[in-house]
């Protein structure tokens, strides 16, 4: 009891502080243990020296890293024009699927077919089919560029996913919001535009952030049909130096972008959970 008064803490606070210290110590010990195990045991494996030379080669990394960064601007470019197109097309598909008027029935069918098809086919297949198929029609330059058709493949695939997320967002707005807006004499369109959509979009920002991160990575799939982006460039250096380190370099560059982005998406998600509660 004397101790309580001296620390100026209630019994509960004292107990909690003790618990915090305990978990901190346990976490530190177990982390150190795991790191030591890796540092000691991995180099003891028979193939370690070879792996170290061909995957973690400092000289090769230093030589190729700046060029990999250059190639990464191609990824950024493809990403930069695909992302807005995906947002617009995805939203349009979502709205088409919720269209109520009978005149728009074909649009609804189209929306459903679109999402079914492009979510059902592996991205790489879509990239191949569109990226090789359409230029195969014998289009004149610049219309046979794999940049255009490869990007289109990404746009179509990702729009299908993004549309479904938007639709979930629209469904997440409580029906009473619709009732209230209709009761004011607004039309169905105005209700959607002014009341439902702003709330729906806000609700799905974290999920859409995750789609952006996935897109950023999938841009690399275009390397299979031509564009020399970072993955392809790394492949070139791999052959040149007969060493896999450029791939590790490429992975590092991706992580530099995606880790902050995923952390931010997680933060948004956590904040939203707190607000809902």
């Amino acid at each position, binding site marked *: 009891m004397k101790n309580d008064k001296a620390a100026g803490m209630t019994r509960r606070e004292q107990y909690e502080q003790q618990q915090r210290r305990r978990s901190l110590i346990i976490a530190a010990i177990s982390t150190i243990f795991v790191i030591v195990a890796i540092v000691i045991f991995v180099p003891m494996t028979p193939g370690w020296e070879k792996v170290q030379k061909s995957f973690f080669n400092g000289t090769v990394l230093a030589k190729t890293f700046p060029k990999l960064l250059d190639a990464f601007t191609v990824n950024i470019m493809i990403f930069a024009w695909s992302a807005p197109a995906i947002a617009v097309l995805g939203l349009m598909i979502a709205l088409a699927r919720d269209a109520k008027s009978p005149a728009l029935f074909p649009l609804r069918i189209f929306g459903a077919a679109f999402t079914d098809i492009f979510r059902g086919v592996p991205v790489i297949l879509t990239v191949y089919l569109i990226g090789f198929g359409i230029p195969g029609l014998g289009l004149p330059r610049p219309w046979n560029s794999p940049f255009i058709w490869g990007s289109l493949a990404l746009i179509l695939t990702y729009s299908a996913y993004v549309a479904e997320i938007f639709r979930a967002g629209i469904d997440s707005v409580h029906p009473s*919001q619709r*009732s209230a807006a209709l009761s*004011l004499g607004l039309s169905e369109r105005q209700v959607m535009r002014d*009341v439902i959509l702003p709330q729906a979009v806000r609700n799905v920002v974290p999920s859409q952030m995750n789609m952006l991160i996935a897109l950023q990575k999938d841009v690399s799939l275009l390397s299979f049909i031509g564009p020399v982006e970072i993955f392809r460039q790394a492949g070139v250096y791999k052959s040149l130096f007969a060493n896999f380190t450029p791939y590790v370099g490429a992975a590092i560059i991706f992580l530099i972008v995606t880790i902050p982005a995923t952390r931010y998406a997680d933060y948004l998600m956590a904040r939203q959970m707190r607000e809902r509660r």
Partner: protein
Amino acid sequence: MQKLELHSVIKKFGDSTVCNGINLNVEQGQMVCLIGASGAGKSTLLRCINLLEPIEDGEIFLDGEDISLPGLNPQNVRSKIGMVFQSFNLFPHMTAFENAILAPKRTSKLSKTQLKSEIEILFERFDLAERMHNYPDQLSGGQQQRVAIVRALAMKPEVMLFDEITSALDPQLVGEVLDVLLQLKKQGMTMVLATHEMQFARQAADKICFLKDGKIVEEGSATKIFNHPKQAETKAFLARALK
């Protein structure tokens, strides 16, 4: 001619009949209170009047005009009939002021400056001027509900429907909302309320309708219903409600 007139209105949800032949007359400037247990059909009836729910059979007349004709564009009707809900239903992404100006901005021919000053006057009249630019989640329940009333009034409706608007409020916040209703009554607004506030209904209502199982069992003045109920069901309900 009655302001609002319901003729044998029938509303079903699947197999259950929620409004089973309701007749109701509301005169210009009258305050009519619908009372009855939860599930009696009060809220559904209000939603039918505002055309939020299509009715299976019967007619609803506003100023002698049949507004329940299937296929009629409900927008014009709804802009003449305002509605306030139990759960406020303010738009959370807009300030109180934006909530109120949205529908007039979309439907009125008045200039934006004119609308703005009209709505500012409304907020002042209901003692909400200081709260005008707050978002709904920054307001108390009572304030939110008053903003919802202002939002409905901004469309200059001829009839107002109130669906248990104090049921979601803390007891100490009920008064400020009921005061708004009295203020509206004084200004001659035609109002239909679904309510559990028996004391308020007793003091303020021009007519009280007791609903049970989708029917109006008994109707009449507050004195008649509260002091001399004729039907056994009305007596039983009031005995429980006034305890």
